């Protein structure tokens, strides 16, 4: 079970996990718990299942928040936002550009247009950017982030350092040497640089390199803004006081395997892990003869012709399949608990039962929150 304190004490809860494990539902449910405890909470999500989106009032993508209608007995507030990562790259440029001319020069650049879509990890980068803004705004007591599903775990955390490394002024200056050279700005190039540029020119083509340098000239002016934001995001994510990571997984081999590595990665990067939610575990009640007898009576009471023996045989088959599945899940969970017990370092392991149908309304989310936090 998760302690309410985690929700009450944190500014940011980041839910990580592979796709298809119900991470969005768990994130929304944690956020809802915050609202039930009287907080103003925002849940930030990316491409959730449609019906869940509808229930949260997210009819369309866009970086605007929607208030979710809650019952009167819930004292806090819940808002939801679905992140449009393509839009945010542009808004980031708008934000960090020192003046309009630089902004227009960058946004109009063909290389920028390609880069903003193809930069490795640009989506993840934008997610961490938008996140920082929202936490920083002070408008919410708590922000819950449903991270984009990633097989390579914490891509979205990496992206920011990768981009910042690339935009390091030394890197940019290095690439700008030949450009300035042509315009008589620079002086003599270092011997190796000349060589490297010849090689890069041979690979990427001289035109591309020239265009790239022009792009960097403008981008260089953004550097300070970028760097400051990168550091701020970094600091927020590492802050043990403000931030908690929660890993969400399902009781499958693949999901638990990925989660083990997530947990290790969080540890390696010194990111504060609060615990693990094992979601959607199958629950089976063992069959006894009373069940069979009373079910027969139920069938007798129906006014419908049916081959009782046949139906019972099939139901027993279904029950045994369900039991097999549940046993597999339980074995996996036991194994999982053992293998992460050291890295978890006292963090929680909460499990939730598989709920019939998909979690797609507030009632189901409230229900899920009871399983996560208790009543």
């Amino acid at each position, binding site marked *: 079970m998760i302690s309410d304190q985690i929700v009450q004490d944190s500014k940011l809860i980041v839910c990580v996990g*592979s*796709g*298809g494990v119900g991470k969005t539902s768990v994130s929304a449910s944690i956020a809802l718990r915050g609202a039930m405890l009287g907080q103003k909470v925002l849940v930030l999500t990316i*491409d*959730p*299942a449609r*019906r869940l989106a509808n229930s949260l009032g997210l009819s369309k993508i866009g970086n605007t928040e929607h208030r979710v209608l809650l019952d009167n007995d819930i004292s806090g507030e819940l808002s939801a936002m679905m992140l449009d990562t393509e839009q945010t790259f542009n808004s980031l440029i708008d934000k960090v550009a020192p003046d309009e001319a630089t902004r227009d020069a960058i946004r109009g650049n063909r290389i920028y247009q*390609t*880069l903003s879509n*193809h*930069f*490795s990890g640009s989506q993840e980068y934008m997610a961490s950017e938008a996140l920082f803004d929202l936490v920083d705004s002070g408008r919410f007591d708590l922000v819950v982030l449903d991270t984009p*599903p990633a*097989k390579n775990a914490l891509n979205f955390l990496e992206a920011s350092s990768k981009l910042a490394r*690339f935009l*390091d002024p030394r*890197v940019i200056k290095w*690439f700008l040497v030949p450009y300035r050279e042509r315009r008589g700005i620079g002086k003599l190039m270092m011997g*190796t640089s000349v*060589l*490297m540029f010849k*090689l*890069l*020119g*041979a*690979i*990427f*083509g*001289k*035109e*591309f390199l020239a265009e790239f340098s022009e792009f960097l000239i403008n981008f260089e002016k953004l550097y300070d803004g970028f760097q400051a934001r990168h550091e701020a995001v970094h600091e927020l994510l590492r802050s043990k006081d403000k931030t908690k990571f929660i890993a969400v997984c399902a009781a*499958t*081999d693949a*999901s638990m395997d*990925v989660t083990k*590595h997530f947990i290790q990665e969080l540890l390696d990067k010194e990111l504060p892990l609060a615990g693990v939610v094992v979601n959607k575990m*199958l629950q089976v*009640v*063992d*069959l006894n003869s009373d*069940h*069979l007898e009373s*079910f027969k009576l*139920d*069938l007798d009471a*129906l006014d*419908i012709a*049916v081959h009782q023996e*046949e139906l019972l045989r*099939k*139901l*027993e088959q*279904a*029950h045994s*399949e*369900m039991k*097999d599945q549940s046993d*597999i899940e339980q074995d996996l969970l036991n194994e999982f608990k053992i293998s992460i017990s050291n890295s978890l370092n006292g963090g929680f392991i909460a499990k939730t039962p598989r709920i*019939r149908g*998909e979690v797609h309304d507030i009632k189901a989310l409230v229900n899920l929150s009871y399983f996560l936090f208790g009543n």
Partner: protein
Amino acid sequence: MKIKELLSSKLVLVSGKGGTGKSAISAALGTLGAKSGRDTIVVEVDVNRPAMNGIFGVDSQFTPKMVSANLSVSNLDWASSLTRWIVRTVPAGRLVKHLLSNKFIRAFLDVAPGNRETVVLSEIGQLVERYDLVIVDMPASGHTISLLDFPRTMLNLFSSGPIRREGERSAALLSDAGTNLVLVALSEEMVVNETIETHRRVHEVASELKEPLIFLNRSQDNLFSKNEALILSEHLTGSDSPLRTAGEWRLELEAATKSAHDRLERETSASVIILPEVTHKEGSSGIVSKLADELNNSDNHPGAGSSV
């Protein structure tokens, strides 16, 4: 027929969300290809823990490893692929080391648009030359799109140089009649959404690529008759018997398969092949050989499992 066609082609790109079972399907396709006597390789792209290790009991590396007759595996890790690519591309090979150890250049190569795609596609092209059948266990769907979109992007950005030539070669590879794309889906709403979206994007960015095949993995066939299903779902709603719960659980899985199948057929123009759930008890190599049987069967009994 579809699977047979797939196995007699040159290149099969297997794509899908994480956890859909695309690695097991790639391995099963590879196993079938090798059985048919074709020299086959199953390739993963820059993964930290190759799935093929567990399936075939090897330590998959960049250099292909033979795991059984006619069947090899390889993991195209980024560093080795990049080195090889530069060796192929840069005229003066002895400079390669300098080039790669330069941290500015590394920073550039790590983020340069389309660079990963260039290198990976180029390496896949090399393998297509050396093997009869290449099966690629692709990275997550988003990356598949950028990989397929790559030639167009490159031809647009580069007017000369080796990357332009690579772009032309890759465009030719992707539009080759021997190249196929398989999208692996599950009967879950979000996975179906993503599959439909990927299918749409594939048409957009790689219109010259053949119509993809969709595998609906881990499907449930129908256990209950219509009448029985009706009784369980409508007439026994007051019962909390574990029997009814089990029946409902089973019906829900069946309904999910039907709904996923219907949506995929309705919202894409691809052929949908249904693959059943294969249990975990046999371990990953057992799953793969069972899957291979199922794939074979889906040709012999067209519509098998599609009674949904």
